[in-house]
């Protein structure tokens, strides 16, 4: 059985300027997730989280490297079927926009009827209305049905960390284009760049 997700020596480089283009941003990622489950993702604004999501869903092309969802190279799958492998959820809606240099006729079929990887980009969590509970149950249901869920949270309140601790089995920390997989919540809050990023929230949590 192929791993749920393999991100293999993936890079995305943005350059600007002419005639001598200067590198403005570089994202590098190399990790794999074998089993279905829920992965928490965190990192400062502009660190490359959304770019990584776009590369995983195949809506953005890598400079080099590959993304395989259950063994299928997402960037070689027909653009109209990529969402059968991975989908990117924005705060309350979903957008599908794909482009490829090649026509669909030259690309591969998805081989799946329902998306295997679900990427949630900063869902709005607020404790007032109770939707958090329904969203967390939905993530658990997807994971229970054999899907892989990524939950990207930008924690600015203590309960955001509670959510991550409650529901995520493993983590990914992204900073300045560097993607670091972390085994568990204790490892996450012990990771020095993450401690700096969370700052006051950690001490508040201990209090």
């Amino acid at each position: 059985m192929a791993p749920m997700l393999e991100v293999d020596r993936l890079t995305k480089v943005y350059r600007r300027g002419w005639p001598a283009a200067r590198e403005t941003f570089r994202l590098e990622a190399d990790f794999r997730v074998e089993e279905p489950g829920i992965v928490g993702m965190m990192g400062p604004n502009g660190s490359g989280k959304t770019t990584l999501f776009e590369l995983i869903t195949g809506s953005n092309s890598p400079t080099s490297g590959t993304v395989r969802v259950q063994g299928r190279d997402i960037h070689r799958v027909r653009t109209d079927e990529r969402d059968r492998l991975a989908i990117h959820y924005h705060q309350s809606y979903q957008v599908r926009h794909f482009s490829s240099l090649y026509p669909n006729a030259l690309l591969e079929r998805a081989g799946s009827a329902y998306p295997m990887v679900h990427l949630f980009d900063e869902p709005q969590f607020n404790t007032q209305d109770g939707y958090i509970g329904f969203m967390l149950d939905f993530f658990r249901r997807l994971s229970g049905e054999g899907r892989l869920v990524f939950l990207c949270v930008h924690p600015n309140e203590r309960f955001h960390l509670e959510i991550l601790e409650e529901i995520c089995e493993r983590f990914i920390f992204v900073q300045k284009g560097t993607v670091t997989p972390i085994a568990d919540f204790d490892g996450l809050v012990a990771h020095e760049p993450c401690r700096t990023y969370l700052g006051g929230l950690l001490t508040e949590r201990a209090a």
Partner: protein
Amino acid sequence: MAFFEARNLHKRFGSRVVLENISLAFERGQVSGIMGPNGAGKTTCFHVLTGLHQPDRGEIELEGKSISGLSPQRIATLGVSRSFQIMNLFDDSVVIENVMLALPEFRTRRLSFLGGVFDDTKLVDAATDVLDQVGLAARAWEKATSLSYGERRALEIGVALAARPKILFLDEPTSGLGSEATRNLAALVRRLREHYTIVMIEHDMRFLFELADRISVIHWGQVIAEGTPAELQANKWVRRSALGEAALA
């Protein structure tokens, strides 16, 4: 087989996915609730269920018969009636006239320039009966503009009932209402549930949890949770929310 059933509905507008594989079932005689954050796809879902939008894929059935692909008018004559978030009333007309115009017998009535509609006692009686159901019989001959906001909402429900539906869809009935008007509306829904199957989209969770037999939570164009109010309220995060506090109070 539920009274009204939708299976695997998909709807996109361009690259925007509004409904993804939504299945819903509404039982006869029950009040079913639909809730979800802004932009989650609730109103589009109503538009698809009542035929205003065609789904890209999926099946819709009323009493076991497919209504997918039928026009909104055809679906309405089969017994599906709805209200809208933005009220559609004829302000210059009197209250009863708004209901009369929506009666099926008004549409089949032969055009007559001699007798006015108000001389047609059958029509007037039928409309009065509807107004009685929504508590507006005493206001029948006043201009629609003289009604309070809450009464206008009740009149709009009356207009939907004039078609004598089997199932009534209400899109955010409490929107814009104050607490007293919301209480009156809750009492109205309690009376109507004796005779109609009701489906409501509602933002006011307290209102919905009080009235609905079952609730579906829609987010990201999908049903993310479903259950009775008690089942949904058992969730730890719901208990921690303002809603949970209200339920415990």
